[in-house]
Structures are given as C-alpha cells and as structure tokens.
C-alpha cells in the first residue's frame, strides 16, 4: 500500500510546528501504524534526516503511551483501539493521512508527536491511590464486594491513562480520566477511607493543570480506546458535590 503522510514536525515545546509531507510506499497492510512509522523513520535516518519523535512502549494496547491524532481522531479511525493496535489495512490505499500530536495546554509538545502527559501523573499523585493499610494480598479475597460494584470498578480500572479523552475533547477536559480513577476506588471497600479527600484533591489538581471543564459532549467516551463510560463522569460530579457539601 502507498500513502501520503502529513506529519506535524515541531522541534521543541517553544518552537512553532508545521505539517510536513512524506510519501511512503510498499507498506504491508498488516503492519501496525507504529510499524509504518518505524519504516518511515528508518528511511529518514538513512537519508540523514531527523526521524519523527513519537511515544510508544507496550505496543499491545495496555500501557497508554502511544498517542497521535490521526485524520482528526485520537488514536485514529478505529473504535476501541489505541494507535499501536491500528493496522494499515484500516486505511485506503493511496490515502492522505494527517498525523498530529494530542493537543492541550496541559500536554505540552516535547517534540513532533510526543507530548508531556505528566499532568496525569500529578493528578494521580494528588489522590489516585489507597494510602491506608488494606492488609495483605489474601485479605483482598476476604473483603466482600458486591459483583455489580466489582464489575463497575473493573470497567473503570481499565483506563490506561493515554489522554485520548483530553485530545478529543473540545475543552481538553480530563474529566473522563479523572472520573475513571475516582470511580475505580470509590466503588471498592479499599477506597472508602480516603473517598472524600481523594476526589477533592484530584479535581483541584486537575483544575490546576489547566484542563478545561466538561461540556458533556461525550467525545471522550466515543474516542476512549478502553470504552470508559461517561457514567463515570456523572459519578465524579456526584462524588465531588457530595464531598464538598459534606458536613464532617
């Protein structure tokens, strides 16, 4: 397969970037999108040009490192898929593919397609953990958890922190990510002790990082590679309002 690629090139967070055109030919349809980028980069290196910087790690849809805004969609056109799980057979032969970084004030571009998503780490550090002793591994099995709640917590825990929700949202809102993390712990017995302070601190950090607010367009849910539901955002709102107004 042959493609015309328009790739965002930006030297660092300070400089202005622009789209640069590349042609790539003889692409195997079963290559992943990242493998196609590897092939392009090999060629650029051989030609003495600067390769395109992009993030990746596991290449199996679990680490959340790969990003890229492909043809106007976070992680490209496939539903429930990360960029590393996207294959070239999902595109038309001869297609022009535009590749941009995830754009958000809170995710500054490091270089080309690689953005700094440590804002998410700081939100997690503000409360996305259990800080009290909940016993040893075997104790987890001894704590009764209703199946329905366990399932909802598990669905929320599927969030890989990739930031596609932020990239897709017109406000660069991080509500889907934060709601997944807050829900995951609010639904489990282990999360109860810090339930209120967790949501208050995580939302405060989210606002401090410069993410926008939620207009409820639900673009995040549609683009999330893990299918995190916006009912989690309703839960986050509920948790935050309750924690704010709670008397103790």
């Amino acid at each position, binding site marked *: 397969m042959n493609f015309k690629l*328009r790739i*965002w090139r930006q030297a660092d967070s300070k400089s202005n970037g622009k*789209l640069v055109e590349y042609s790539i030919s003889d692409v195997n349809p079963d290559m992943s999108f990242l493998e196609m980028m590897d092939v392009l980069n090999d060629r650029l290196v051989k030609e003495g040009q600067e390769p395109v910087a992009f993030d990746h790690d596991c290449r199996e849809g679990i680490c959340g490192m790969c990003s890229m*805004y492909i*043809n*106007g*969609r976070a992680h490209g*056109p496939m539903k429930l898929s990360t960029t590393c799980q996207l294959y070239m057979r999902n595109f038309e032969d001869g297609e022009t593919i*535009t590749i*941009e970084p995830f*754009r*958000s*004030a*809170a995710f500054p*571009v490091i270089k080309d397609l690689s953005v700094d998503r440590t804002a998410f780490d700081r939100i997690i550090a503000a409360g996305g953990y259990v800080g009290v002793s909940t016993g040893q591994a075997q104790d987890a099995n001894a704590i009764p958890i209703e199946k329905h709640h366990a399932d909802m917590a598990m669905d929320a825990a599927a969030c890989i922190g990739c930031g596609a929700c932020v990239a*897709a949202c*017109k*406000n*660069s*809102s991080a*509500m889907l990510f934060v709601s997944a993390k807050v829900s995951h712990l609010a639904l489990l017995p282990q999360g109860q002790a810090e339930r209120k302070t967790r949501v208050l601190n995580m*939302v*405060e950090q*989210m*606002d401090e990082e*410069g*993410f*926008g*607010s*939620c*207009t*409820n*367009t*639900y*673009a995040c849910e*549609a*683009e999330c590679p893990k299918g995190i539901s*916006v*009912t989690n*955002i*309703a*839960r*986050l*709102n*509920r*948790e*935050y*309002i309750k924690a*704010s*107004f709670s008397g103790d």
Partner: protein
Amino acid sequence: MNWFGKFLTSSIGRKFVMGLTGIALVLFLIVHCGINALIFVNDGGVLFNEAAHFMGTNIIIRTMEIGLFVGILLHIVQAYMLAVANSKARPGKYQVNSANANSRWYSRSMTLLGTLILLFLIIHLKHFWVVSRFTGLEETSYGAGNLYIEMQEVFAIGWVVIVYLIGVISLAWHLLHGFQSAFQTFGWNTLKYRGLIKCAGKVYAILIPLLFALMPVAMYFEWIK
C-alpha cells in the same frame, strides 16, 4: 478560600451553577409558555391579559422575577468565563479535526447557541418586558394592561417574527443538549435514569420551543385575532 468558594470556582462547581441556573430557566419557561399559550384561547386576549396582569403585580411572582434575573445573569457570566477558560485549555488547534465522528455539533456549540439566545432575549425584553413595566401598556376595560395588542403589533412585522423563530430554534438546540447535560452535571445521569432524562429532555426541547414558535407565527398570519 473556604469550602464553598472552592466549590464554586472549581470546574465542576462552575458547571453546577450552569446546570442549576439552566434548570431554573427550564422551569420558568414552562410557566412562561403556559401563560402565553392562553392567547390560543382566541378570546381577543382577555384571559391572557388577566394572567399577565396577575404575574406582573403579584408580590411573590415579582420577588421570584428578581431571582430569575439573577439566575440568567449568573448563567450568562459563567457561560463566557467557561468559554474563555476552555479555549485557553486548547491553545493550538488541530489542522484536521473530525469532531462530527465523536460528538454532536450542537453539544459543541452551546456558546454560539447561547449567544443567539442572548441577542434574542435583549430584543424580546425590549418588546414586552420594558413596555409592560416601564413605558406602559394600553388600558383595557377590565383593569389589566393590554399586552395582547402589544403582541399583535410586534408580531405584525415580518423580520421580528423571523428573529423570534431564530431565537426559539436556538433554544431548541441549546436544550436538546442542555437538558440532559445538566443532569449529567448534577451526577444523576446514571444507567438507571439516563433513558428517562434523555427522553424528557427531547420532549421538552421540541415541545416548548414549538409552542413558542407558534405564537408569533399565529399572530402574523392572523390565525388568532
């Protein structure tokens, strides 16, 4: 900052204010639409004028009117503050963005739709509210001001009817998203209630603007006299 200030200035708190004032406006419009619909009784406006007179003179209603204005003001100020903050959160725009693949245009256009409603509202208040409260209405034999005649005069003008239709259509789109959105903001959009909220929102967002749209149209074409 104390807890309440913190809540009100947080992103979720700001949206909570939007939702609360939005739903207050939704409730107000039910009353407003209900009373105005009395013109369809087609009695030369007697019933409508009497109801309007009551609404304009009753002390409880007049007090609630102050609350309504405060609510609208909060809704408008908060709307533009959010719009500015949200646009700052995305300084570099995408060269290619397929937003229609993941969301509806009207959910992304609440500020534009709200601005159209605001422009309409200014014209609307000048047409009726200013006249009935300040510059004075024509007298009727039964002691109420003749707001009905005022309506007939205003809605005899073609461009005014078109402006009203634009305002009302903007309202319909605003609420098609806004109604369910407010319940999401309150945290009530759970799996159990989502269907009900969506359905009620659609019914409201179509029915109320449709009734409002019928009023200037019916007067313009003199379906009611």
